[in-house]
């Protein structure tokens, strides 16, 4: 026990004497979480503060273009600027001035009306008493298309979302025109309301909650756990570098000649670096609770969850330390440990769902994500933050994290024993 305490104290001194390293350990994750949350905040807001500028080319000048313009304005998603011609819009999108241009073709309103009237006439003639009545010959109205020009740099998800919104707007306009045509055919009084044109099926977004308190997920609630976990796992870098330094300094060789087990040496490192990861976590929470509201970001709500959050952070920290111990044991130089460690953490984060939710990944990657300790940690954090999980419900995830620490540390000890067997 005395040797473990001495090892822990030595590690504590080494870590606290490296002011630059400490600053990187604590400040960079804070900077990361502030930047990412600020960037992602908009996608979680119900009402956008920033409107996306788009171009509209109205060659129709009719009812349809008027309705599209109104719908775009009502959506509050876009700031609509007008362009005179198709070519002008295309050029500006290509230059990157606008991410999107919508071109409404000439005579769209009149031709839509003709097409719908013909259809309505056709339907009504089927119900007519006069079986011999002959419908008027159909005009040749070709299907029209609304052109959407996208900036080549636009993401696919954004394109799909915009396409879907425009499609919805046009369907609504078509439906209303059909209702209007029927109305005109069936009654002479325009004020008489035959059809209820209000949308029959609507959506209400409800976030399930076990308790009375409904949780509204926001960018802070999503980003703090994800990026805190990312920062916690980045501890493998300083830890592995600390171990490689010992090999290069010769202190590791001296320790091998001392009557002290490798497990004790690793124990000292585990305690100190676990402590560092918990301090990191506390700082991240503090930033979410106190700093975010001051800079206009949603406040992190930890009410009643703090003990469980620290439980998850503790086990996530253990898993990260285990990985660092293994890397530090195997790596011979900093050139090996630093790039490998950094890349590996990024891979673990990617497959763990830190950047892209696991459900949005291809099937194979979803299976692979089950092997990422970051996925277990993230899942546990979300359980606490967004699902009000109890300690019992966290046991499967924290057991996996603990198991990961035990396995990686055991591999490190066995590897060291075999490599240095005497």
């Amino acid at each position: 026990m005395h040797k473990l305490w001495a090892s822990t104290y030595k590690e504590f001194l080494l870590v606290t004497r490296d002011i630059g390293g400490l600053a990187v350990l604590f400040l960079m994750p804070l900077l990361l979480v502030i930047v990412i949350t600020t960037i992602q905040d908009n996608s979680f807001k119900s009402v956008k503060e920033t409107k996306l500028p788009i171009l509209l080319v109205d060659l129709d000048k009719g009812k349809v273009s008027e309705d599209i313009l109104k719908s775009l304005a009502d959506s509050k998603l876009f700031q609509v600027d007008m362009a005179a011609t198709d070519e002008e819009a295309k050029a500006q999108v290509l230059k990157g001035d606008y991410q999107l241009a919508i071109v409404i073709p000439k005579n769209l309103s009149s031709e839509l009306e003709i097409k719908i009237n013909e259809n309505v006439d056709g339907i009504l003639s089927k119900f007519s008493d006069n079986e011999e009545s002959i419908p008027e010959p159909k005009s040749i109205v070709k299907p029209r298309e609304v052109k959407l020009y996208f900036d080549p740099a636009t993401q696919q998800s954004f394109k799909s979302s915009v396409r879907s919104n425009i499609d919805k707007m046009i369907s609504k306009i078509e439906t209303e025109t059909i209702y209007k045509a029927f109305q005109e055919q069936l009654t002479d009084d325009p004020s008489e309301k035959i059809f209820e044109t209000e949308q029959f099926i609507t959506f209400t977004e409800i976030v399930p909650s076990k308790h009375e308190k409904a949780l509204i997920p926001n960018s802070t609630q999503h980003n703090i756990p994800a990026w805190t976990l990312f920062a916690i796992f980045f501890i493998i870098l300083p830890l592995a570098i600390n171990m490689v330094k010992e090999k290069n300094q010769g202190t590791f060789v001296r320790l091998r000649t001392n009557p002290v087990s490798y497990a004790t040496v690793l124990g000292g490192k585990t305690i100190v670096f676990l402590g560092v990861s918990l301090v990191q976590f506390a700082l991240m929470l503090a930033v979410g609770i106190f700093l975010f509201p001051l800079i206009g970001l949603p406040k992190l709500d930890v009410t009643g969850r703090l003990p469980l959050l620290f439980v998850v952070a503790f086990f996530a920290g253990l898993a990260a330390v285990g990985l660092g111990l293994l890397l530090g044991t195997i790596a011979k130089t900093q050139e090996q440990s630093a790039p490998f460690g950094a890349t590996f953490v990024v891979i673990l984060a990617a497959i763990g769902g830190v950047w892209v939710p696991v459900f949005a990944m291809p099937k194979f990657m979803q299976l692979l994500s089950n092997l990422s300790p970051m996925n277990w940690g993230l899942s546990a954090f979300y359980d606490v933050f967004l699902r009000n999980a109890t300690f019992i419900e966290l046991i499967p995830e924290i057991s996996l994290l603990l198991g990961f620490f035990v396995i990686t540390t055991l591999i490190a000890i066995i590897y060291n024993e075999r490599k240095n067997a005497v």
Partner: protein
Amino acid sequence: MIQINDLSKKYKGADDFSVRNLDLTIAEGEIFGLLGPNGAGKTTLISMLSSLLKPTSGSFTIDGLNYKEHKNQLKQLIGIVPQEYALYPSLTAYENLVYFGSMYGLKGQSLKNDINSHLETMGLSKFAHKKIKAFSGGMKRRINLISSILHKPKVLFLDEPTVGVDVQSKNVIMAYLKELNTLGTTIIYTSHHLNEAEQFCTRVGIIDHGTLVGLGKPKELIAQEENAEHLEDVFLAKTGKALRDHA
């Protein structure tokens, strides 16, 4: 004190043995100098005796303890002063010594007293709370030595303990080692300073290509070798004048 029987070491992928069928006995209280050109097998032999390297074949005992069966007792019995400084640069001399002393189970006031006493003898008391990274080569060598003797080892292995130090530091180190020896510590030491070895050692072994090519008291070896006036003459006669470059 040290009994080496038919000890050999061949590194993985190496063409030849670094130490080959070596037999040697070192008595308690000796200052034994292990001399040889670069790559002769000195460090390999010391590494095996200090539990850092696994012998390919053969065996050895220290104070009657076999390295295979009594690994931890052996570690408590010996002290190793490596060629590198093997100290934490960002810790003070005192912190380094407390840490390495603790690894031998030493603690409390007796450890502090021992550290202070060693620092005093080595002329480093006033630098006790300075960080190692600020020390000169000679000061680091002295701390390196103290780190290895806090637990009062019966056998002390020193791998070139005076390399790269000034004359003053060298004198302090050598005087201190003499004192330790008079207190009963058996010393096995490697060096390229043959004059130093001639003065310091009670017996020397000249090793080349992993085998002993000369063994005895320095004066005896000089007397046995034709036209030899110093140990260096014996050394060159036994190992030749060809360069020993290794890559």
